[in-house]
Protein backbone atom coordinates (compact mmCIF):
# COMPACT_ATOMS: atom_id res chain seq x y z
CA UNK A 1 0.00 0.00 0.00
CA UNK A 2 1.55 3.32 -0.97
CA UNK A 3 1.43 6.40 1.27
CA UNK A 4 -1.49 8.02 -0.55
CA UNK A 5 -3.59 4.86 -0.42
CA UNK A 6 -2.87 4.72 3.33
CA UNK A 7 -4.14 8.28 3.85
CA UNK A 8 -7.25 7.48 1.79
CA UNK A 9 -7.92 4.28 3.76
CA UNK A 10 -7.45 6.03 7.10
CA UNK A 11 -10.03 8.70 6.28
CA UNK A 12 -12.47 6.21 4.76
CA UNK A 13 -12.38 4.35 8.08
CA UNK A 14 -12.60 7.42 10.30
CA UNK A 15 -15.17 9.49 8.33
CA UNK A 16 -17.92 9.20 10.95
CA UNK A 17 -15.54 10.23 13.75
CA UNK A 18 -14.91 13.51 11.97
CA UNK A 19 -18.60 14.28 11.55
CA UNK A 20 -19.03 14.33 15.35
CA UNK A 21 -15.76 16.18 16.03
CA UNK A 22 -16.34 19.56 17.69
CA UNK A 23 -12.85 20.70 16.71
CA UNK A 24 -13.61 20.17 13.03
CA UNK A 25 -17.22 21.40 13.16
CA UNK A 26 -16.40 24.95 13.97
CA UNK A 27 -14.67 27.13 16.45
CA UNK A 28 -12.48 30.11 16.06
CA UNK A 29 -10.30 28.84 13.21
CA UNK A 30 -13.37 28.34 10.98
CA UNK A 31 -14.74 31.79 11.87
CA UNK A 32 -11.39 33.38 11.06
CA UNK A 33 -11.10 31.48 7.79
CA UNK A 34 -14.54 32.69 6.69
CA UNK A 35 -13.65 36.29 7.69
CA UNK A 36 -10.36 36.25 5.82
CA UNK A 37 -11.95 34.72 2.71
CA UNK A 38 -13.92 37.94 1.98
CA UNK A 39 -16.74 35.90 0.43
CA UNK A 40 -18.70 37.36 -2.49
CA UNK A 41 -22.03 36.14 -3.92
CA UNK A 42 -20.49 35.50 -7.36
CA UNK A 43 -17.59 33.36 -6.07
CA UNK A 44 -17.07 29.86 -7.43
CA UNK A 45 -15.05 28.17 -4.72
CA UNK A 46 -13.16 24.96 -4.07
CA UNK A 47 -12.73 23.45 -0.62
CA UNK A 48 -9.77 21.05 -0.81
CA UNK A 49 -9.69 18.04 1.53
CA UNK A 50 -13.13 19.03 2.76
CA UNK A 51 -13.38 16.01 5.07
CA UNK A 52 -16.97 15.90 6.27
CA UNK A 53 -17.69 19.25 4.65
CA UNK A 54 -17.74 21.70 7.58
CA UNK A 55 -15.76 24.40 5.79
CA UNK A 56 -17.58 23.93 2.47
CA UNK A 57 -20.94 24.23 4.24
CA UNK A 58 -19.82 27.31 6.22
CA UNK A 59 -18.82 29.07 2.99
CA UNK A 60 -21.74 27.89 0.81
CA UNK A 61 -24.47 30.30 2.06
CA UNK A 62 -22.38 33.31 0.95
CA UNK A 63 -21.15 32.23 -2.49
CA UNK A 64 -22.48 30.99 -5.82
CA UNK A 65 -21.12 27.46 -5.64
CA UNK A 66 -18.72 25.32 -3.60
CA UNK A 67 -16.95 22.29 -4.98
CA UNK A 68 -16.11 20.17 -1.92
CA UNK A 69 -13.28 17.77 -2.74
CA UNK A 70 -11.65 14.97 -0.81
CA UNK A 71 -9.40 11.97 -1.38
CA UNK A 72 -11.78 9.67 0.53
CA UNK A 73 -15.20 8.94 -1.05
CA UNK A 74 -16.66 8.09 2.41
CA UNK A 75 -15.90 11.67 3.49
CA UNK A 76 -17.85 12.95 0.47
CA UNK A 77 -20.92 11.01 1.58
CA UNK A 78 -20.68 12.77 4.95
CA UNK A 79 -20.30 16.11 3.13
CA UNK A 80 -23.43 15.47 1.05
CA UNK A 81 -25.37 14.51 4.18
CA UNK A 82 -24.27 17.67 6.01
CA UNK A 83 -25.20 19.90 3.04
CA UNK A 84 -28.62 18.20 2.86
CA UNK A 85 -29.22 18.67 6.60
CA UNK A 86 -28.45 22.37 6.24
CA UNK A 87 -30.61 22.76 3.12
CA UNK A 88 -27.63 23.78 0.96
CA UNK A 89 -28.07 23.09 -2.75
CA UNK A 90 -24.86 24.71 -4.05
CA UNK A 91 -22.36 22.23 -2.56
CA UNK A 92 -20.99 19.79 -5.14
CA UNK A 93 -19.02 16.82 -3.79
CA UNK A 94 -16.07 15.78 -5.95
CA UNK A 95 -13.32 13.23 -5.43
CA UNK A 96 -9.85 14.73 -5.88
CA UNK A 97 -6.23 14.42 -4.86
CA UNK A 98 -5.11 17.76 -3.41
CA UNK A 99 -1.71 17.34 -5.07
CA UNK A 100 -3.08 16.59 -8.58
CA UNK A 101 -6.37 18.48 -8.82
CA UNK A 102 -8.77 17.28 -11.54
CA UNK A 103 -9.88 20.77 -12.58
CA UNK A 104 -9.21 23.06 -15.52
CA UNK A 105 -6.91 26.07 -15.18
CA UNK A 106 -8.33 29.32 -13.78
CA UNK A 107 -11.83 28.19 -12.80
CA UNK A 108 -12.06 29.19 -9.12
CA UNK A 109 -12.32 32.57 -7.39
CA UNK A 110 -11.42 31.09 -4.03
CA UNK A 111 -9.71 27.95 -2.75
CA UNK A 112 -10.10 27.05 0.92
CA UNK A 113 -8.39 24.29 2.88
CA UNK A 114 -8.77 23.72 6.60
CA UNK A 115 -7.07 21.35 9.04
CA UNK A 116 -5.74 19.16 6.23
CA UNK A 117 -2.39 20.17 4.68
CA UNK A 118 -0.49 18.54 7.56
CA UNK A 119 -1.53 15.24 5.91
CA UNK A 120 -0.28 16.18 2.43
CA UNK A 121 2.75 14.21 1.23
CA UNK A 122 3.83 17.12 -0.98
CA UNK A 123 2.30 20.40 0.22
CA UNK A 124 4.14 22.38 -2.47
CA UNK A 125 2.24 20.38 -5.09
CA UNK A 126 -0.99 21.51 -3.41
CA UNK A 127 0.15 25.15 -3.53
CA UNK A 128 1.16 24.90 -7.20
CA UNK A 129 -2.12 23.21 -8.11
CA UNK A 130 -4.06 25.88 -6.22
CA UNK A 131 -2.22 28.59 -8.17
CA UNK A 132 -3.13 26.82 -11.41
CA UNK A 133 -6.87 26.45 -10.73
CA UNK A 134 -7.32 29.98 -9.35
CA UNK A 135 -8.45 32.78 -11.62
CA UNK A 136 -6.18 35.85 -11.70
CA UNK A 137 -6.98 37.79 -8.53
CA UNK A 138 -8.33 34.62 -6.89
CA UNK A 139 -7.38 33.87 -3.33
CA UNK A 140 -6.28 30.93 -1.25
CA UNK A 141 -7.35 30.83 2.41
CA UNK A 142 -5.84 28.12 4.59
CA UNK A 143 -6.24 27.24 8.24
CA UNK A 144 -4.23 24.44 9.77
CA UNK A 145 -2.39 23.46 12.91
CA UNK A 146 1.11 24.91 13.01
CA UNK A 147 4.20 24.25 15.06
CA UNK A 148 5.94 26.80 17.28
CA UNK A 149 9.08 28.59 16.12
CA UNK A 150 11.36 26.98 18.70
CA UNK A 151 13.09 23.79 17.54
CA UNK A 152 12.28 21.73 20.64
CA UNK A 153 8.56 22.56 20.51
CA UNK A 154 8.40 21.93 16.77
CA UNK A 155 10.15 18.54 17.05
CA UNK A 156 8.07 17.38 20.03
CA UNK A 157 4.73 18.39 18.53
CA UNK A 158 5.44 16.64 15.24
CA UNK A 159 6.80 13.51 16.96
CA UNK A 160 3.62 13.32 19.04
CA UNK A 161 1.39 13.81 15.99
CA UNK A 162 3.13 11.09 13.96
CA UNK A 163 2.92 8.66 16.87
CA UNK A 164 -0.80 9.31 17.26
CA UNK A 165 -1.56 9.28 13.53
CA UNK A 166 0.72 7.62 10.97
CA UNK A 167 -0.82 9.76 8.19
CA UNK A 168 0.45 12.95 9.81
CA UNK A 169 3.24 14.47 7.74
CA UNK A 170 4.13 17.76 9.43
CA UNK A 171 2.70 20.76 11.25
CA UNK A 172 4.54 23.64 9.58
CA UNK A 173 5.77 26.82 11.21
CA UNK A 174 4.04 30.06 10.17
CA UNK A 175 7.20 31.09 8.25
CA UNK A 176 7.17 27.83 6.30
CA UNK A 177 3.56 28.46 5.21
CA UNK A 178 4.53 31.86 3.92
CA UNK A 179 7.53 30.52 2.00
CA UNK A 180 5.42 27.81 0.35
CA UNK A 181 2.84 30.38 -0.80
CA UNK A 182 5.63 32.62 -2.13
CA UNK A 183 7.31 29.75 -3.97
CA UNK A 184 4.02 28.89 -5.70
CA UNK A 185 3.73 32.49 -6.92
CA UNK A 186 0.94 33.47 -4.53
CA UNK A 187 1.20 36.83 -2.81
CA UNK A 188 0.81 36.63 0.97
CA UNK A 189 -1.78 39.20 2.11
CA UNK A 190 -2.53 38.45 5.72
CA UNK A 191 -1.86 35.76 8.29
CA UNK A 192 -2.41 35.17 11.98
CA UNK A 193 -1.65 32.56 14.60
CA UNK A 194 -4.20 31.48 17.21
CA UNK A 195 -4.42 28.80 19.87
CA UNK A 196 -7.06 26.08 19.70
CA UNK A 197 -7.69 25.47 23.39
CA UNK A 198 -10.31 22.77 23.19
CA UNK A 199 -7.98 19.80 22.59
CA UNK A 200 -8.91 16.73 24.68
CA UNK A 201 -6.74 13.64 24.70
CA UNK A 202 -9.38 10.88 24.58
CA UNK A 203 -11.39 12.37 21.74
CA UNK A 204 -8.17 13.20 19.91
CA UNK A 205 -6.85 9.60 19.83
CA UNK A 206 -10.33 8.19 19.11
CA UNK A 207 -10.68 10.41 16.04
CA UNK A 208 -7.46 9.17 14.46
CA UNK A 209 -8.14 5.53 15.36
CA UNK A 210 -4.83 5.28 17.26
CA UNK A 211 -4.11 1.61 18.14
CA UNK A 212 -4.62 0.84 21.87
CA UNK A 213 -0.97 -0.16 22.35
CA UNK A 214 0.15 3.24 21.04
CA UNK A 215 -2.36 5.33 23.01
CA UNK A 216 -0.37 4.87 26.23
CA UNK A 217 2.84 6.06 24.54
CA UNK A 218 1.02 9.14 23.29
CA UNK A 219 -0.39 9.79 26.76
CA UNK A 220 3.06 9.43 28.30
CA UNK A 221 4.55 11.98 25.92
CA UNK A 222 1.94 14.49 27.10
CA UNK A 223 2.18 13.74 30.82
CA UNK A 224 6.01 13.65 30.80
CA UNK A 225 6.40 16.83 28.75
CA UNK A 226 8.93 19.38 30.02
CA UNK A 227 7.72 22.51 31.84
CA UNK A 228 8.52 24.58 28.72
CA UNK A 229 6.37 22.32 26.53
CA UNK A 230 3.60 22.33 29.13
CA UNK A 231 3.53 26.08 28.98
CA UNK A 232 3.67 26.34 25.17
CA UNK A 233 0.89 23.81 24.66
CA UNK A 234 -1.06 24.51 27.89
CA UNK A 235 -0.94 20.84 28.87
CA UNK A 236 -3.05 20.17 31.98
CA UNK A 237 -4.00 16.83 33.52
CA UNK A 238 -7.51 17.28 34.84
CA UNK A 239 -9.89 14.76 36.37
CA UNK A 240 -11.87 14.18 33.21
CA UNK A 241 -9.03 14.15 30.68
CA UNK A 242 -5.76 15.72 29.57
CA UNK A 243 -6.45 19.19 28.19
CA UNK A 244 -4.04 20.90 25.81
CA UNK A 245 -3.90 23.59 23.15
CA UNK A 246 -2.57 23.48 19.58
CA UNK A 247 -1.45 26.58 17.70
CA UNK A 248 -3.07 27.14 14.31
CA UNK A 249 -2.40 29.50 11.44
CA UNK A 250 -4.97 31.19 9.19
CA UNK A 251 -3.79 33.08 6.13
CA UNK A 252 -4.85 34.53 2.79
CA UNK A 253 -2.66 34.64 -0.31
CA UNK A 254 -3.63 35.91 -3.77
CA UNK A 255 -2.85 34.97 -7.35
CA UNK A 256 -1.69 38.08 -9.13
CA UNK A 257 -2.68 38.72 -12.75
CA UNK A 258 -5.43 40.32 -14.77
CA UNK A 259 -6.41 43.52 -12.99
CA UNK A 260 -4.33 42.49 -9.97
CA UNK A 261 -0.68 43.50 -9.70
CA UNK A 262 1.83 43.98 -6.92
CA UNK A 263 2.78 47.51 -5.94
CA UNK A 264 6.21 48.12 -4.48
CA UNK A 265 8.92 45.63 -3.55
CA UNK A 266 8.44 42.40 -1.74
Amino acid at each position, binding site marked *: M*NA*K*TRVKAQFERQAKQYTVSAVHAGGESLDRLVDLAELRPEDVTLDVATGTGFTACAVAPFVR*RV*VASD*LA*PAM*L*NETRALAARRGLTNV*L*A*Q*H*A*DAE*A*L*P*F*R*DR*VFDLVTCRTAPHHFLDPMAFFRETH*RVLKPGGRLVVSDTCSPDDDAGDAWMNRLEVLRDATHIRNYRPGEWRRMADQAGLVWETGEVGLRQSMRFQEWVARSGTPPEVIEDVRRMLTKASPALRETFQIEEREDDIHFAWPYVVFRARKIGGQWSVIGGR
Partner: protein
Amino acid sequence: MALDQQLLEILACPQCKGDLEYDRGNEKLICHKCRLKYSIKDDIPIMLIDEAEKF
Protein backbone atom coordinates in the same frame (compact mmCIF):
# COMPACT_ATOMS: atom_id res chain seq x y z
CA MET B 1 -28.95 10.96 -10.97
CA ALA B 2 -26.53 11.98 -13.68
CA LEU B 3 -23.22 13.69 -13.28
CA ASP B 4 -23.58 17.33 -12.38
CA GLN B 5 -23.27 19.50 -15.51
CA GLN B 6 -21.52 22.28 -13.58
CA LEU B 7 -18.89 19.82 -12.41
CA LEU B 8 -18.41 18.36 -15.88
CA GLU B 9 -17.61 21.82 -17.23
CA ILE B 10 -14.68 22.34 -14.87
CA LEU B 11 -13.31 18.78 -14.54
CA ALA B 12 -10.02 17.93 -16.24
CA CYS B 13 -7.65 14.98 -16.27
CA PRO B 14 -5.58 15.23 -13.05
CA GLN B 15 -2.50 14.12 -15.00
CA CYS B 16 -2.45 16.32 -18.14
CA LYS B 17 -5.22 18.78 -17.09
CA GLY B 18 -6.76 18.22 -20.53
CA ASP B 19 -10.31 17.54 -21.69
CA LEU B 20 -12.31 14.53 -20.57
CA GLU B 21 -14.99 12.69 -22.50
CA TYR B 22 -18.05 11.57 -20.52
CA ASP B 23 -19.00 8.01 -21.44
CA ARG B 24 -22.55 7.85 -20.06
CA GLY B 25 -23.15 4.22 -20.98
CA ASN B 26 -20.16 2.91 -19.03
CA GLU B 27 -20.07 5.63 -16.38
CA LYS B 28 -16.48 6.66 -17.15
CA LEU B 29 -14.59 9.87 -17.76
CA ILE B 30 -12.02 9.28 -20.47
CA CYS B 31 -8.76 11.11 -21.13
CA HIS B 32 -7.70 10.18 -24.66
CA LYS B 33 -4.31 11.89 -24.33
CA CYS B 34 -3.22 9.92 -21.23
CA ARG B 35 -5.29 6.88 -22.26
CA LEU B 36 -6.92 6.70 -18.85
CA LYS B 37 -10.51 5.95 -17.83
CA TYR B 38 -11.77 7.31 -14.53
CA SER B 39 -14.66 5.39 -12.93
CA ILE B 40 -17.79 7.07 -11.62
CA LYS B 41 -19.10 5.66 -8.33
CA ASP B 42 -22.30 6.96 -6.68
CA ASP B 43 -22.26 9.85 -9.19
CA ILE B 44 -18.77 10.84 -8.09
CA PRO B 45 -15.92 10.52 -10.59
CA ILE B 46 -12.91 8.95 -8.86
CA MET B 47 -10.17 11.23 -10.14
CA LEU B 48 -7.09 9.43 -8.87
CA ILE B 49 -4.40 8.72 -11.48
CA ASP B 50 -3.32 5.53 -9.67
CA GLU B 51 -6.85 4.13 -9.69
CA ALA B 52 -7.67 5.01 -13.29
CA GLU B 53 -7.96 2.21 -15.83
CA LYS B 54 -5.36 2.25 -18.63
CA PHE B 55 -6.47 1.49 -22.19
